[in-house]
């Protein structure tokens, strides 16, 4: 049960997590998850909102492909990904990744790798808007290094 949603609407990560947990295989004793929020401050300035651009059709397909790839690599079949696009207010959730598995190591590894790949390989473009104006955010050298660690 791999589920990927790209959505403009605000969502409750906890409600989605509860639904995912309720649908999981009852042999899956481990559920690792990650929620990424729009922060209210960046390195140097206040953030009022985030704007996430995507490529309709292509983005959905790429995130689905990435999710299935990570699931197959770690032997986990239960993954939920929800990723917002459009305008996101400070404090709101941008992304939820949840992985259920019989084994906690696989659940953690898959959730972390999926987040690392979303940061560098998923077709999204984002900018922070604050009192100082807008600023495009691109992956850091550290983000690319983390992604590289997952390559064989």
């Amino acid at each position, binding site marked *: 049960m791999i589920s990927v949603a790209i959505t403009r609407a605000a969502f409750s990560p906890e409600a989605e997590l509860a639904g995912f947990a309720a649908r999981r295989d009852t042999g899956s004793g481990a559920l690792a998850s990650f929620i*990424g929020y729009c922060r209210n401050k960046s390195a140097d300035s206040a953030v009022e909102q985030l704007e996430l651009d995507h490529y309709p059709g292509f983005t959905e397909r790429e995130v689905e492909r990435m999710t299935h790839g990570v699931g197959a690599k770690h032997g986990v079949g239960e993954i939920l990904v929800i990723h917002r696009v459009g305008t996101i207010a400070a404090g709101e959730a941008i992304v939820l990744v949840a992985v259920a598995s019989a084994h906690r190591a696989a659940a953690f590894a898959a959730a972390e790798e999926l987040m690392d790949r979303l940061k560098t390989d998923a077709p999204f*473009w984002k900018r922070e808007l604050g009192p100082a104006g807008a600023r495009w955010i691109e992956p850091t050298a550290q983000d690319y290094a983390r992604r590289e660690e997952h390559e064989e």
Partner: protein
Amino acid sequence: MTRILFFGRLRDVAGHGERDIDLPDDVATIADLRAWIGRDDAVLGDALRCRSIRACVNHVISIDDNASVKGAEEIAFMPPLSGG
């Protein structure tokens, strides 16, 4: 007719997110297309020549600047991807 799309900061530079264009016959590759767009808009042309900008032809990201764009329905220009 080919749809040209610009994402992220390229959309700001281009002033639009997408436009339908009849590509001239001498625009055969991604490199040709970058140069051809640059003839019309030098700033956008400069932005497109940046090494980190990748082209995506008919939903396939290309790392080869000599890849063909002949008959392509959609060509997107993408700054570095960053979700999450």
